[in-house]
């Protein structure tokens, strides 16, 4: 089945220790998104790519970076995680011409 995969599902990192979250997709979609979701809140868009073209949301902290080396993979790098970065991180895809998004299972990040 075509899908969006995120690894790991759970990630524990120390305060200030860089961490990378990964996302892959078999849907061959042009667009990939990274969202941050905190408890009882809506997902908040951090970045998205149309193919390799990158779009950064204005309020995404500089501490967050992203890479998309090819169509299938996308990475979220948190350079110096703070306690406030503990959240669920969701990856999503959509085709360039359709509208709905397909989400991965998410990575729950804990910062100790």
């Amino acid at each position, binding site marked *: 089945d075509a899908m969006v995969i995120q690894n790991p599902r759970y990630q524990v990192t120390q305060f200030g220790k860089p961490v990378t979250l990964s996302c892959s997709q078999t849907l061959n979609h042009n667009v990939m998104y990274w969202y941050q979701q905190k408890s009882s*809140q809506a*997902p908040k868009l951090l970045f998205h790519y*149309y*193919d390799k*073209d990158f*779009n950064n949301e204005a309020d995404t902290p500089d501490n967050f970076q992203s890479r998309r080396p090819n169509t299938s993979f996308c990475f979220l790098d948190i350079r110096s995680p703070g306690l406030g970065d503990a959240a669920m991180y969701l990856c999503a895809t959509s085709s*360039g011409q359709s509208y709905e998004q397909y989400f991965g299972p998410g990575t729950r990040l804990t910062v100790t």
Partner: protein
Amino acid sequence: AQKVTQAQTEISVVEKEDVTLDCVYETRDTTYYLFWYKQPPSGELVFLIRRNSFDEQNEISGRYSWNFQKSTSSFNFTITASQVVDSAVYFCALSEAGVRRLIKASGGSYIPTFGRGTSLIVHP
């Protein structure tokens, strides 16, 4: 600017009851898309339905039905004969065609605005 309001923070029902989740939206665009997503406790958001602004037909899929009314800017979601497995957070979302982000000349991406979500708890 686009805005989505889900006034119901949490709804609690007993199995087999019908339940309606409300969604009210604001947009200045004449072409837009409305969505419902389900987020079970496992965390993955699951796409349920998309509606285009020019198609006001209501839709039914099994126990799920959606009522789209442009006159009241609402896109409500009804679950008939609810089941415990329906327990989840449900998000309504809106994408405006006019604010499609054109990163490349050949295409762009739609950036949805999500409501805050409604937590549905179905008790056995």
